[in-house]
């Protein structure tokens, strides 16, 4: 039984369908390992007891036509789950139990999966190291005292550490791809509008997207097929023809044109990242695809643009956490005093910093210089991609400018922390799909990822490219189980 948790999602589904395994065995195995993995601090809330009940129920009356038959799964604690506490990693929602289910998780349960629990994340998904969570930082399974990345840090740790076969995260500026890269797993940020935002605690509405995180590309494609759906409850959801991403997955990418953007060769980027990129280019060629040098001239403006747009939206999105209706409330002398105390005590430092930035850039007299200008630059960044896609089918870049860092290393330097997102934010600003796949290790043995950026709604294409490259890269994650015993 001990090897159950080492199996991929695809294998588990196969084995359950072939009755080699039952949902109860699989669920038990992941619960056992999760229980032994408290040191990782990957979970905020577990739902193990009822998960086992559901697994038993599934086994009594199994439906093998489902895409995730009896598969246990933990999800990021940004997804509202009915009757299960949903905190967004914040004190201000520490006692919040939704009466409703997010569309994305609903899609997952409808395909037969079973909720294991809610995974740790940066507070309101604001962070790149999972250190801003009210529930403490998450340890990376890669090494002790290493950050798993963020904001979907709990999700990344749980998949890499085999606490859950797959999971879902959310990605506003890299929150799926960066932690995937840091922990040696696969993470996909879908096209904006592909996955419903209904029931996901909002960070920056025009950028937020849910997406799958998995051990391999095939699992990732299968999970994406489940979560992507048009949803009338989300006005920004797009009704386009969705592929059977898992079924249609192919490693034949012969003749594809892959762009290599020169602007991603940033100052001070470690040589090992450059080497990894070159290796990636070679793999692309080995797969029979072609690489073409391209230019995305406005890339250097992406990060400052992102750090105006995202906080602006966040400052407004987080206004609802005021102590009046639900969540944490501090006692105050009057309404204003209650607001001030509730929000000062309820939000952590990073969230407060971003609310202040956002409030500032939207305020009268600064709006034009910051928010409006950022919107214009955002358009230029999108135009860059549109221009590039006249010549290429996809774009290959490193996922992050460095490998994972130590816990505490960047806590007091927000700007250096923000720089983590330099390769991922342009994708969110342009609303495009991007996938990070593990592609090698740095000198310390920490995983490094490559990012493939696609055209809008062209997830199948980047999944195929990732699938083909994965085969060539043959990456093995070095998990020593250091946290167990």
């Amino acid at each position, binding site marked *: 039984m001990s090897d159950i948790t080492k199996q991929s999602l695809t294998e588990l589904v196969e084995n359950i369908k072939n009755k080699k395994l039952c949902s109860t065995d699989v669920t038990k195995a992941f619960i056992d390992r999760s229980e032994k993995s408290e040191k990782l601090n990957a979970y905020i809330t577990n739902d193990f007891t009822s998960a086992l009940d559901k697994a038993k129920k599934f086994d009594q009356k199994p439906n093998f036509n489902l895409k995730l038959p009896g598969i246990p799964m933990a999800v990021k604690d940004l997804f*509202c789950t009915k009757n299960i506490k*949903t905190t*967004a990693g914040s004190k201000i*929602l520490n006692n*919040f139990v*939704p*009466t*409703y289910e*997010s569309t994305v998780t609903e899609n997952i349960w409808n395909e037969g999966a079973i909720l294991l629990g809610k995974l740790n994340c940066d507070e309101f998904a604001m962070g790149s190291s999972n250190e801003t969570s009210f529930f403490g930082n998450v340890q990376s399974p890669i090494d002790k005292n290493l950050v798993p990345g963020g904001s979907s840090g709990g999700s990344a740790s749980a998949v890499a550490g085999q606490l859950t076969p797959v999971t879902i995260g959310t990605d506003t500026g890299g929150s799926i791809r960066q932690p995937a890269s840091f922990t040696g797993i696969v993470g996909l940020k879908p096209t904006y509008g592909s996955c419903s*935002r*209904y*029931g*996901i*605690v*909002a960070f*920056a*509405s*025009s950028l937020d997207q849910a997406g799958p995180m998995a051990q391999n590309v095939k699992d990732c494609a299968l999970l994406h097929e489940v979560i992507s759906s048009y949803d*009338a*409850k*989300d*006005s*920004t959801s797009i009704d386009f023809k969705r592929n059977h991403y898992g079924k249609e997955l192919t490693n034949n990418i012969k003749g594809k044109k892959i762009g290599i953007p020169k602007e991603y060769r940033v100052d001070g980027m470690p040589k090992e990242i450059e080497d990894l990129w070159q290796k990636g280019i070679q793999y692309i060629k080995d797969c029979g695809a072609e690489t073409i040098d391209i230019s995305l001239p406005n890339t250097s403006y992406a990060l400052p643009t992102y750090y105006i747009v995202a906080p*602006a*939206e966040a*400052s*407004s999105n*987080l*206004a*609802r956490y*005021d102590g*009046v*209706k*639900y969540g944490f409330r501090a006692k105050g002398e009057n*309404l204003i005093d209650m*607001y001030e105390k509730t929000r000062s005590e309820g939000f952590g430092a990073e969230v407060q910093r971003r609310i202040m930035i956002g*409030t500032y850039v*939207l*305020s*009268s007299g600064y*709006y034009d210089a910051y*928010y409006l200008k950022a919107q214009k630059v955002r358009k230029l960044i999108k135009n860059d991609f549109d221009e590039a896609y006249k010549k290429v089918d996809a774009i290959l870049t490193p996922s992050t400018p460095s490998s994972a860092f130590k816990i505490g290393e960047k806590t007091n330097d927000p700007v250096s922390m923000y720089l983590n997102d330099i390769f991922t934010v342009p994708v969110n600003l342009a609303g495009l799909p991007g996938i990070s796949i593990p592609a090698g290790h740095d000198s310390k043995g920490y995983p490094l990822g490559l990012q493939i950026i696609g055209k809008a709604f062209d997830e199948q294409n980047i999944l195929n490219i990732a699938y083909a490259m994965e085969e060539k890269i043959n990456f093995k994650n070095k998990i020593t189980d250091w946290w167990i015993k």
Partner: protein
Amino acid sequence: MSKKDSEYLINRKDNQYEVVIGLEVHAQVLSESKLFSTSATKFGAEPNTQVSLVDAAFPGMLPVINEFCVKQAIKTGIGLNAKINKRSVFDRKNYFYADLPQGYQISQFKDPIVGEGKVILDMPNGQKEVGIERLHLEQDAGKSIHDLDPQNTFVDLNRSGVALMEIVSKPDLRSPDEVNAYIKKLRSIMRYLGTCDGNMQEGSLRADVNVSVRPKGSKEFGTRCEIKNVNSIKFMQMAIEYEANRQVDLIEEGKTIDQETRLFDTKKNETRSMRSKEDAHDYRYFPDPDLLPLEVSEKFIEELRNDIPELPDDKKKRFIEEFKLSPYEANILVSDIDTAKYFEEVVAKMGKNKDIKLAVNWITGELFAVLNSKGLEISQSPVSAKNFAILINLIKNGTISGKIAKTVFELMIDGDKDPQKIVEEKGLKQQSDPKALEALIDKIINDNREKAIEYKQGKEKLFGFFVGQAMKASGGKANPQLINEILKKKL
């Protein structure tokens, strides 16, 4: 009345001041559900029973535009002769308040759904055009209730998210009377369109009133003050009167007017400063990223345009032409859609040989009096248009006299009775049989021989006496014309 006589001016010593008024009217969209959620909008429901997760701003909840409300706004725009914008944008207006669950109100700031338009007012001295600056859609907030508990404030979110149309006028109004006419005209148009019930008691229609003054003849605007949230026409007029005089007094004293937001205290009949320009909220408007820009096609607008009923201005014109009414009569009938409906139904039911003038007089006279005394709307009239038409016809064809008709009308009120039946049952039919009347008159002349002789000798005043006697003897039912004829012959 000449135009000059009707000017509303504030006089001080040698100076005369003109008052400049612009209104921001908040009209609740007539809709079963809210602007961005499916919750009900019924007035007077138990607190917090018409609240969805979206209205209460739960985490992860998203707004979805209610297409019906969009249609209502466009229809209203068409009724205001305004430009309909095919692309409009919803913005967030950010501020904190306990009854604003999202921490922002979804409104339209830079790109409203309806642009410039105009309405025509019928003033005693002629027509006046008032420009419309814009109409935009926005959410209403909830309600804070401060007087239920000494320590706590209660919040009712039933209203949270209800669709409002904010209709902004140009600063074209010049007097409390014009404001009265403007509000009534807006309400009339929206009731015709069925886009707002205009019920001010229930808060379906309220306004922020912008007031400034300037020396008569001046082309420049003075500094304006905004009086927030006034919910009756009377209060608007009182507030303007007070505020204009306050501003004039300041100018006369050589002081300046501060641009500020003020409140009207209905008990003290005065406006009070609420917040100055410096304390004004910074609402940090920005496009709501949860909503795509609202785009409507030409076809969509055209279909709504084809759906627009005849509006008061057109109806008035038609009434004047078709029914030969005076502009004054037409105005009275068209200002309220239900009155116009009632009138047209009466006209239709009267059939071929109809007396429209008579019907108008009876509607604006007897019927209005009854409705007034009973505090009823014409839609609740105790006399149906059908029976009303029968009554008018009975007068017209001589079955009953106007005087008897009043008696019949009173009997009709209780249970909408058929006047024909009342006339028959009570024997109120006019006596027009010459033989019967001749007999009756013979008797009267016989009984009053001396007076008959006096009349014949030249005392003509006595003719009226005989008419009176004859009417009395017939119980008021005798055809007065016939009585006259017969008396003349017999005497």
